[in-house]
């Protein structure tokens, strides 16, 4: 069987100007950082970016806004990063609509599962208020099912999805660490072409079947990201810098 492992540049060549792109991660935790860096270097433009939040300032996805590569953002926040905030206020980042997080992920999951959409009761009577989404082509549709008013929320899909996992085997089976599963499995299934960036690539059989967090069937390409030590060091330096982590003194006290 052909290995799914390929050079990162080759895998990312499917992302072109105007691509509808989904990126896994939660405020850039469990986020495909090396792939994002390569997309910045390639300077692909007019992307429609589907991501749960814009990202973290000075880091990861934020570099895409800074470099003016994102035309439209489909998300649950606009301002988790300084760069997305700036682009939005300058009118350079189109936000037609934004969703409660649970609605957003269910729209992605509907796309992942081959559904047309989902019925969501959250926000009815609030998010359909006049003037809240001035760029919407038509008002949000509401139906009543079993006595509950719900929005009809169409599925979200993408031409390309890039996810991040701890390790992959050459068949594309993915294993996650800690909370970094987040939306990566659902996003992997919602992309027509899915790239998995991982810390480590291992032979088939290394990841026990019951430890597979995302089956390789949903993954088209596996690319090498940062090694796990490099990733830990990078995040630790960012957190240290921002006061989210404190270095112990020589006696181990923080």
């Amino acid at each position, binding site marked *: 069987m052909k290995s799914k492992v390929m050079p990162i540049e080759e895998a990312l060549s499917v992302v072109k100007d105007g691509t509808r792109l989904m990126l896994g991660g939660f405020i850039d*935790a469990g986020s495909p950082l090396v792939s994002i860096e390569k997309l910045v270097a390639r300077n692909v433009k007019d992307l429609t970016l589907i991501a749960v939040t814009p990202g973290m300032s000075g880091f990861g996805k934020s570099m895409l806004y800074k470099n003016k590569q994102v035309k439209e953002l489909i998300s649950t*926040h606009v301002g988790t990063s300084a760069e997305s905030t700036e682009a939005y206020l300058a009118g350079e980042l189109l936000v037609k609509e934004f*969703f409660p997080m*649970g609605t957003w992920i269910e729209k992605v999951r509907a796309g992942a599962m081959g559904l047309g959409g989902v019925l969501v009761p959250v926000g009815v009577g609030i998010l359909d208020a006049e003037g809240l989404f001035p760029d919407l082509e038509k008002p949000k549709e509401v139906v009543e099912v079993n006595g509950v008013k719900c929005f009809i929320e169409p599925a979200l899909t993408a031409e390309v999805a890039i996810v991040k996992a701890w390790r992959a085997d050459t068949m594309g089976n993915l294993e996650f660490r*800690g909370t970094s*599963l987040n939306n990566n499995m659902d996003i992997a299934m919602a992309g027509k072409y899915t790239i998995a960036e991982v810390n480590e690539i291992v032979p088939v059989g290394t990841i026990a079947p019951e430890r597979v967090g995302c089956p390789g069937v949903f993954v088209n390409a596996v690319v090498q990201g940062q090694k796990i030590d490099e990733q830990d060091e990078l995040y630790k330096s960012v957190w240290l810098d921002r006061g989210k982590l404190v270095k112990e003194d020589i006696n181990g006290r923080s």
Partner: protein
Amino acid sequence: MDVREIIARRAAQELEDGQVANLGFGIPTQAVNYLPESVTLIMHTENGAFGFGARPSYNTCNSDITNAGSEPVTLLNGGACMSLATSLGAMRNGYIDVTILGALEVDQEGNIANWAVKRNGMWWPGIGGAMDLTYGTKKIIATLQHTDKKGNSKIKKHCELPLTGKGCVKTIITEKAVFDIDAGQLILREVYPGLSVQDIQNITEAEFIVSSTLKEMTL
């Protein structure tokens, strides 16, 4: 004691042993510092875990164990990771017992607004998981300063900003007072030591009744 500490200390008293809790950033998160020893919570974070604990030390920090602010945390024994979809489903479907949320405005009908303000004439959306949380959580506690910088009441007759949740707030905690909302009525339950009901009336736009068991906050 500063205003934030008063609110955090008082909010901590609302939490009960064994509850599944999701605490918003800022004052709500600060409340865990003032929990009595007899109270252990199962902390939920919407990016996908039950049972997270304190910040790790530098040397034990794992870049794949984070909270909803993408900050490093730890996972306690008995903790459990899940997907984002499962985590938000838990919020929507009533698996979270209690939440403490910061608020921009609340009103006498139990409405809460905490996600949208206007900046440069544009709605500034930061909705995240707050709307899912107010939709499904059993007990919602809103924490906020009683008045804005100009002295205007943030406890309104009717919220003016886009709502996060409708008629969902059970308790409002400010640095001056504690209110409950019951059967569509705002009830003054506690006042900051030394303040009178009249003092609270003077800084509160909302209409409220006074509980027959009105007392001073103990902090």
